[in-house]
């Protein structure tokens, strides 16, 4: 208990640092670019346009208001992808500093995930623009979206911790994870609809073993369908997030003292 209190106190002590690190990431991301923050919105928009053109014309079955369908899932995936990739490198990238001064190492991982989350929230603007342009209906359920984002944030923190510590010891994790992310994208019903065209085992695989499915499903329910997510995906989302967090924190704590020897 004391340890926990101590940990919370350190976290509190370094809150300004996290804040500053997040601010730095956001500031640096668009420094010296003409449009600045607008890119946060423009980027998903452009991707969306490409994907919409490709998939509405190539895929046989039409999905109603594909842009909104796509974006409501794609946004979460992008967040997962960027935040965990960045988190994975966070310890190594800060090695010069970590070698010289004592700072809790998780601060950097946490700050990275957080700044990506903020960036994601900012890019929600793109979704709203698309919704307005395509004349989609704004459901009340949209207001519950923050809960989904929070779940995914916790999940990404956990995964980020796990990857960050692993990456310290095995640099090839970066490359493997790149492939995993691509596979992950196609194993999640983001650009397609998970319907009866897919074999049964695939349904079981996606719904049973793909954590991202839970968050995409929730988000889509809230934004696209305008309904409350089912209890399975809702509670499942929370549980998975915390399990991932525990795994991440545990693995990180276990090996953090050895980082210095490898970075």
């Amino acid at each position, binding site marked *: 208990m004391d340890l926990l209190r101590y940990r919370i106190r350190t976290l509190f002590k370094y809150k300004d640092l996290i804040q*500053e690190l997040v601010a*730095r990431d956001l500031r640096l991301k668009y420094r010296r670019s003409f449009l600045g923050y607008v890119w946060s919105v423009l980027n998903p928009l452009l991707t969306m346009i490409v994907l919409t053109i490709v998939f509405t014309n190539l895929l046989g079955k039409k999905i109603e208001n594909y842009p909104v369908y796509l974006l409501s899932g794609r946004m979460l995936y992008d967040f997962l992808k960027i935040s965990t990739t960045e988190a994975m490198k966070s310890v190594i990238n800060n090695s010069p*500093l*970590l*070698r*010289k001064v*004592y*700072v809790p190492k998780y601060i950097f991982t946490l700050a990275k995930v957080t700044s990506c989350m903020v960036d994601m929230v900012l890019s929600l603007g793109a979704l709203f623009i698309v919704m307005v342009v395509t004349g989609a209906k704004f459901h009340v359920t949209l207001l519950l979206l923050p809960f989904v984002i929070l779940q995914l944030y916790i999940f990404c923190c956990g995964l980020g911790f796990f990857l960050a510590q692993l990456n310290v010891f*095995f*640099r090839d994790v970066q490359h493997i994870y790149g492939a995993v992310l691509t596979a992950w994208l196609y194993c999640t019903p983001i650009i397609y609809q998970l319907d009866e065209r897919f074999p049964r085992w695939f349904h079981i695989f996606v719904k049973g073993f793909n954590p991202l499915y839970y968050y995409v499903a929730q988000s889509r329910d809230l934004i696209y369908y305008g309904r409350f997510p089912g209890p399975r995906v809702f509670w499942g989302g929370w549980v998975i997030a915390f399990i991932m967090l525990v795994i991440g924190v545990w693995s990180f704590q276990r090996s953090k003292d050895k980082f210095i020897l490898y970075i």
Partner: protein
Amino acid sequence: MGKYAIEVENVKIRFNLASENVDNLKEYAIKLVKHELMFQEFLALQDISLKIKKGESWGFIGVNGSGKSTLLKTISGILQPYEGTVKVEGRIAPLIELGAGVDPNLTARENIYLNGLVLGHSKEFMEKHFDEIVEFSNLEEFLDSPLKNFSSGMKARLGFAVATVVNPDILVVDEVLEVGDMRFRRKCNERMQQMLAGGTTLLYVSHNIESVQSLCENVVWLDRGKIRMMGPADEVCEAYKEEQEEQTVKRKEEKRARWREKGKKYDYLVVGAGLFGAVFAKEMAKRGRRCLVIDRRNHIAGNIYTENLDGIQVHKYGAHIFHTSNEKIWKYVNRQAEFNNYINSPVARYKDELYNLPFNMNTFYGLWGLKKPQEVKDRIAAQIADLGITEPKNLEEQALSLVGPDVYEKLIKGYTEKQWGRDCRDLPSFIIRRLPLRFTYDNNYFNDRYQGIPMGGYTKIVQKLLSNVDVMLETDFFEYRKEHPDSFKKVMYTGMIDEYFDFCYGHLEYRTVRFETERVEEANYQGNAVVNYTEREVPYTRIIEHKHFEPEEERKNPKDYSYISREYSTEWKPGIDPYYPVNDEKNNALYEKYRALADQEKNVIFGGRLGAYRYYDMDKVIAAAFETVAKELNLRPWW
């Protein structure tokens, strides 16, 4: 509140080199299969125990990789000890180079904040002290440029300013200040001194031993992860420096040994390990030329050789007192050895009378009881006028016409006759051109600006000069050349020039001195280093009492015995040690003939007192050696 700010007990830091090199899965799998993962262990620190009281300043020295930084990191909490404990009381501020870690793309302003936050300050705190930091670092104009454009010195400045914005309990400085400019370093030093006075504990790592000595009270010398020595700064630093030097000499010696084994040709064969040869060889070696120094004698240093006899440095080949007016030469010799402030003021004994030398007011007072310079001048002028010598035909007349009969009879005549083994009337007048008379009460024999004796003897100087040169003693040049004609490219010959040409035109003449050195069971034999005996009846010309050359040594270790050397002038015969060239017309002409031969000799340079058949003081020898090197290598003259 404990007494100690830092307590380190039996700390061991272990690195696993094998697994540290593994940063990818393939290697990991291979090593896992081969069971190599936990083998190569490396102890970065072993058995380190340290107790540092609050407010103390500690320096850490050691060669690269000795574990200094590892130890500081362990104390800072960056590294966890594998064994042992580290207890730290108080807030540690490590001095880190700003931007090294945080982000080179951010501006200095942003980095200051981030750096402060990394050190655990709150944002509010940083805002409050921001101006202070900027002012100390003196970088107002660059606040909004990205840190990546900063020089390392500027980064260090910012880092220092941030780290010391409040007095931390413990300040850790790890070599970052070395990049700053002089002014900033001074400023940092001041600040650190201030903080020390204010009770901050300082841990300081630097390769600049001087700065460690000036800042730290205590020093820990780490060597391969262990504490080699720990204690007061001066003591440890001296020991460290000494070892460093030894190691350098050893490394160079090893390198030379490798060359020798390979049988590589020497660039220069230096004949004679005296001062000229040693300076020549050293300066050549410094410029990358390989030299072999050979000498016939069984010791180095030629005629400036001093031998330690029962703790007294005995000048085996006559008294040598270093004196020069050339500042560069003075500095040069002082780099090779520490000099004392010995001033040569010899005394002359004539029968039962004692006179000061050189001829000065003390001498004249002894002779005539006159106290005023003008009276002395008048007396001498009157004496000279009485003689009525217009054109001196021999040495006696020459001396008389310069100083008058009193000085000549008592102080010059006998001495000179003993020196040359001839009556003064039979000696040519040119031997004495001038006899300087001093109308002040100054007994300092030399007029040069710098004067002294190297503490510990001259041999040490030559030893140091030759520390990076191969030396072979008891080796005769002519035999060596016969046996190894191809082992060298060029010869630097400092021996007798006539001997080189096998005396083909006859022998050049030298005036030579014989020494009878004896130990006397008397703490103080004559009360002065040099006493001249100016009467003809005493067979020796001078007595040297060697201990008086190094009075400080005698003060430190008083001895109830002494070493004295009686000097006898002897006729020179071929085969005995030559001392002073006799630069009369006959000999000079002979030398010129040899010189002409020497000029035709390719790949042999002649130099030094015997090679050039000239009398040189030691400073002139050094200058001549330097000139020879410069000429040989087409360098700009040294002065």
